């Protein structure tokens, strides 16, 4: 007992603490020494041992290269480990070209680039790189979900919530709770009203109730959901990824589809969604809530939905299928040796639009370095040319089939520099409302398990994904 009291005195613990200390604590401390068999001062630091865990530390780094958050799930790793990353970052010029996996003498660095931020994790041992990458994106998604965006300012403003989230998402470097519904039960997302109330009353972000979701077999849904208006909305969004060559032939075309859901239904609804033409969907991936066997046998989506927003499924219609291309582009871009100038002439017209209107049409061209300026006229919309980034953007808007938009004019080139050999490619952006270009249609949505009548809605939209026209 003497021993332990001396130890307490050493560290000058206030009377309060001693009072708070139960007598049995003291005896436990005493017995530690016996068990441990070594004095505490010369015990080896834990990092001395080979430690195998998945994600050791996380650093958040902004575009200037400042580390503005660090979190360690085991012993602390010095920030200096990031220097290897900065070196690679420097070398890559473009942030997109930083290798996601780097090897340093003692660690491995795995990073992602999201919203102008680098999420850099430190790894010590073998781990599937995709495991870490997927997790880091999940962290970024969670921030997005909580704060509406994933940026340095918003993370710095919510540092404590962010830290609490990271604490719950990973235990000893292994993912623990990554479902947004479970996390929201434990840590409430900020909102203005509550943060005012919190500052006045000292209230907290942490949920009072203990999270039950984690314990259940449907961790994606929290219990006791109640809404006055029960509604379920589904957005079917398809993006066309295409490469069209100079002559207008399609080199490759694929469709990336996603069904995003916003489900606000009380209780434990069990939903079934069926399609008019499920045969289109031969390459799919699902939210864990979807019953896969049911899909395999009946081609319907049967699921108990998470509460709120989530991605129900994504699908891919590969280039082996015939994909409709909504617009055609007639273009000619020429550079002339003499007079150091160039000519540009682009016309866009509708191709396979299924009778719908093409909106938000936009053409982006990354010009060769030698192009100094552009002097063009657009029959519709506006164009801008940024001399530093060499980006020509032509914002057209709605496509009028009667009067096709045209952009033409001259390009002024740097003199004395040989003509660029390459022709820039055109990136097209567009949007078509009320159409899924693949022809996919939801035929019905049924709800079981609850008695009320929900309001249901499905919206379709087609967009250009990576839609590129080569010149």
């Amino acid at each position, binding site marked *: 007992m003497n021993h332990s009291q001396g130890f307490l005195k050493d560290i000058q613990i206030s009377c309060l603490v001693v009072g708070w200390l139960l007598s049995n604590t003291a005896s436990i401390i005493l017995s530690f020494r016996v068990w441990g068999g070594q004095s505490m001062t010369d015990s080896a630091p834990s990092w001395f041992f080979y430690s195998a865990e998945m994600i050791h530390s996380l650093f958040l780094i902004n575009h200037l290269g400042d580390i503005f958050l660090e979190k360690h799930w085991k012993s602390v790793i010095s920030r200096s480990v990031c220097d290897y990353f900065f070196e690679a970052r420097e070398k890559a010029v473009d942030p997109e070209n930083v290798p996601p996996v780097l090897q340093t003498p003692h660690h491995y660095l795995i990073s992602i680039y999201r919203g102008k931020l680098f999420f850099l994790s430190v790894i010590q041992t073998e781990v599937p790189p995709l495991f870490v990458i997927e*997790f880091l994106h999940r962290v970024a998604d969670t921030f997005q979900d909580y704060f509406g965006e994933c940026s340095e300012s918003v993370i710095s403003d919510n540092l404590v919530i962010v830290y*609490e989230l990271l604490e719950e998402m990973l235990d000893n470097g292994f993912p623990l709770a990554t479902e947004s519904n479970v996390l929201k039960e434990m840590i409430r997302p900020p909102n203005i009203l509550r943060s005012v109330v919190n500052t006045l009353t000292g209230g907290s972000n942490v949920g009072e109730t203990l*999270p039950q979701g984690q314990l259940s077999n449907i961790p994606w849904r929290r219990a006791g959901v109640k809404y006055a208006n029960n509604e379920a909305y589904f957005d079917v969004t398809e993006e066309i990824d295409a490469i069209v060559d100079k002559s207008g032939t399609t080199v490759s075309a694929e469709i990336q589809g996603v069904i995003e859901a916003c489900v606000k239904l009380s209780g434990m609804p069990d939903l079934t969604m069926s399609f008019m033409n499920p045969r289109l969907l031969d390459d799919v991936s699902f939210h864990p*809530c979807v019953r896969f*066997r049911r899909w395999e046998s009946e081609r319907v989506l049967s699921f108990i939905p998470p509460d709120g927003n989530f991605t129900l499924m994504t699908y891919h219609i590969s280039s082996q299928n015939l994909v409709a291309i909504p617009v055609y582009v007639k273009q000619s871009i020429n550079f002339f040796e003499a007079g150091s100038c160039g000519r540009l002439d682009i016309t866009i017209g509708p191709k396979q639009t299924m009778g719908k209107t093409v909106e938000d049409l936009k053409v982006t061209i990354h010009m060769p370095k030698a192009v100094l300026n552009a002097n063009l006229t657009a029959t519709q919309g506006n164009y801008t040319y940024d001399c530093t980034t060499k980006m020509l953007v032509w914002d057209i808007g709605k496509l009028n089939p009667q009067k096709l938009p045209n952009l033409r004019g001259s390009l002024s080139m740097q003199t004395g520099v040989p003509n660029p050999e*390459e022709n820039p490619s055109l990136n097209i952006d567009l949007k078509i409302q009320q159409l899924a270009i693949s022809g996919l249609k939801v035929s019905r949505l049924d709800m079981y398990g609850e008695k009320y009548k929900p309001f249901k809605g499905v919206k379709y939209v087609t967009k250009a994904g990576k839609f590129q026209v080569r010149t």
Partner: protein
Amino acid sequence: SSKNIINYNFYELVILFNSANDNKIFYLIWSSHDDLKEMLDSNKDSLKLEAMKRIVAMIARGKNASDLFPAVVKNVACKNIEVKKLVYVYLVRYAEEQQDLALLSISTFQRGLKDPNQLIRASALRVLSSIRVTIIVPIMMLAIKEAASDMSPYVRKTAAHAIPKLYSLDPEQKDQLIEVIEKLLADKTTLVAGSVVMAFEEVCPERIDLIHKNYRKLCNLLIDVEEWGQVVIINMLTRYARTQFLNPNINGGSGDKTFYGSDEDEDEDEEEKEKKPYVMDPDHRLLLRNTKPLLQSRNAAVVMAVAQLYFHLAPKAEVGVIAKALVRLLRSHSEVQYVVLQNVATMSIKRRGMFEPYLKSFYIRSTDPTQIKVLKLEVLTNLANETNISTILREFQTYIKSMDKDFVAATIQAIGRCATNISEVRDTCLNGLVQLLSNRDELVVAESVVVIKKLLQMQPEKHSDIIKHMAKLTDNIQVPMARASILWLIGEYCEHVPKIAPDVLRKMAKSFTNEEDIVKLQIINLAAKLYLTNSKQTKLLTQYVLNLAKYDQNYDIRDRARFIRQLIVPTEKSGALSKYAKKLFLALKPAPVLESPFKDRDHFQLGSLSHLLNAKAGGYQELPDWPEAAPDPSVRNVEVKESVRAVGTVTHRDTGALWGPQRMEGSESCSFPRAQSSEEEERKHQRKSKPRKSESESESDEDEESESESSQSESEDSESEAEVKKKKKVQTRVNYRGRPQEEGVFLQTIAPSSTLKSYELLHRITGEGLSVEYCFSRQPFSPDANMVAVQMQFTNNASSDTKNLHIEDVKLQSGMRVKEFPEIELLPAGETATAVMGIDFCDSTQAANFQLCTHTRKFFVSIQPPVGELMRPVFLTENEFKKEQGQLMGMNEITEKLTLDVKCRNEHTIVQRVTTAANLSRVPCGSDKECRFAGRTVTSGSLVLVTVATKEEGAAQLTVNCEKMVIGTMLVKDILQALTQ
């Protein structure tokens, strides 16, 4: 302590200085830690919380807050949850530095470990095990051991997480930890499975023997495990399979013949082996079959894990399925693309055919990041063959025009590789590359030169004009590597360009001193070769070059000059070697092989970090080679029940599907033997049923899950069990598992264990070959929670197919409803199919009558439920139970005295019999003389409470409390029968 003060002040300054740079409010707040200490000492939670938030923000920014340790640690027992949580965060961060002080907090966690709330127990264990203080190792060990047998799966999961933490703190605990791992591996909940395999991988990946008994269970649970756990389990099982099964591709053609779940007896297996070269182990097949649906996961890591499993384990003919899923991942974030493409690059070398249909998905966009472009190029090159090369080359032509010069260089190399691999296009490629020599961009020209050099080496005699052309380039090209390549070419093939070569040497001699080192070395080479072939013209030039080199700054060059002079210029001293100089320098050199950098990378497990880096990372487990002969497959047999083997192939469980929301409150599940389990298999089971040892030790930690290997029921009624098997009945097991009795407070619940009875709906003879059995699966019927799920098994014993199996003409009492099963379109002869229908019996035992129709016949059938199936379990605490019971007295209570059957005098059997008779769950109870059960009727949700109080000599009293008197009366009858017979 005066030293402390100085440090402290210094620290203040640092803080002031740092915070001045921050645009945030920290300047004011952090001017002094005394404020924070005061706030922490105050009585107001709001102040404490504010202080903790600031401290955590400091930690997040990487600032030192360790001096606040004493002030913070006092609040570890704070009532406010958020303060407490933040204190935990702080504690875990600084405990290592302040070990003595950290010990003060331990008692709080020890108390937490005993909390009745499972979440608090779990969180206490989580924090305790995260405190990296060596001295508490024994405490942690004890806590982990206890938690590993906790009744809550969530706490057990936390225990599994704690294992690697303790291991890294003190590796000497390994043996004890392995025991815990072994115990947890036997756990049957999906919640625990992923975490314990993770612990296994980190602590004892070499102990593959621990997996045997759990192999089939892990395969079957896999689809319901959370996604991160899936990755870990799949990777581990890949390694396991490589040690236990035979290479399915060992004899070439075997890939197209696969033996789906061939469940033959072992002797038959051997016979098979003599006849056929290879038979896939059913367990091998099980793994492949159960992982395949996960290719549809939204999680890229899971998809990759399955893909690598198929790549390493599947017969060639089946590997193709992964290509589509991997191609889908290419739409994901660029980091995901990067990793996936690396793996596709490796796979596409070995299994080119697999990705060929997706060629276009690897086409490159100008907007792709360079590192992605280069990887796609690699894949395209690997996929190139005689048929698609023209398409690929056309694609490459557009790439060469790209603005991204690094990418252009990579494209030129890719063209070179295509040209070496496919001789048909060699000349086309060469011509294309020669055209590039007039490109304006020097990098492009240089890269072309290097590639052309390699190509020319294959057939130099045909291409002396190209060599001439290149000789001219020396005037313009400045890139050292290209200059060196040209010089080497001219030297090597100087006989093809006898006039030009000496002239090139002349020019080079002039510029020698200004050249890069690699170029200088090649000039010396060129000089030497010319001297040997054409000494008349070049003797002086060579001398001159060698003299220049002799005084070069670089000693490599000096050495080279000295060496070459000795070799080529004959003097008295030079030995026999100079005679062979010409042979040495102008020997025929083999053409370089242009290989993919990804060749042979597949000796690393795909998807691993080591594969990506092409170097072994720390902790990497080698992928073992297939064994020559398969190890004994019987090690995976679980001794508990014969039916396990059939069950091992049951895969109809679904992602969370068969589980309703109430699963945690007493759930159930059922597994029919799957379709293929034919008569033959059944016979085998009977043959195999030798007496098994009753596993008393496993009783304590039985838990539910998809397996039907409930070990609890078997010891008692092996007779009735044989019955069960004969009729192909299916068991279900238990949910709630108790801890061994001696453990104190939480051990109350021993779970209901029940055996699903199956009933005949249509006999084989009446059904003209179609026989139908049904059982009450005791699962929530997901389309309608008020319905009882009835699982039907159709067997077509006839010799012709049965089509369009469906229900018609349902006749029901008023209020009753039926949800029919989806029509079974085809039931081939000899096959079995299952379907689930839902019936709302309105809490009555009235039969539901309907017609079962096939394409030719209609049969009248009816389903009448035993009263015990009209309820579903609910989980109540002891107090809730007593409270509810108090409200169901009088008319609602029925009591009967009984004498228990001799075989039924222990608690375990009573529980088992009651839960078999009625779908109820066990309620924890402090007394060991009483067993309590609770449930609610399916339609009206009325509570059903059952109490069995045992007395001396097998005397007992049964009490049923239920609002619905009819149900109560009937239930009493049924339970009485169950307990007395």
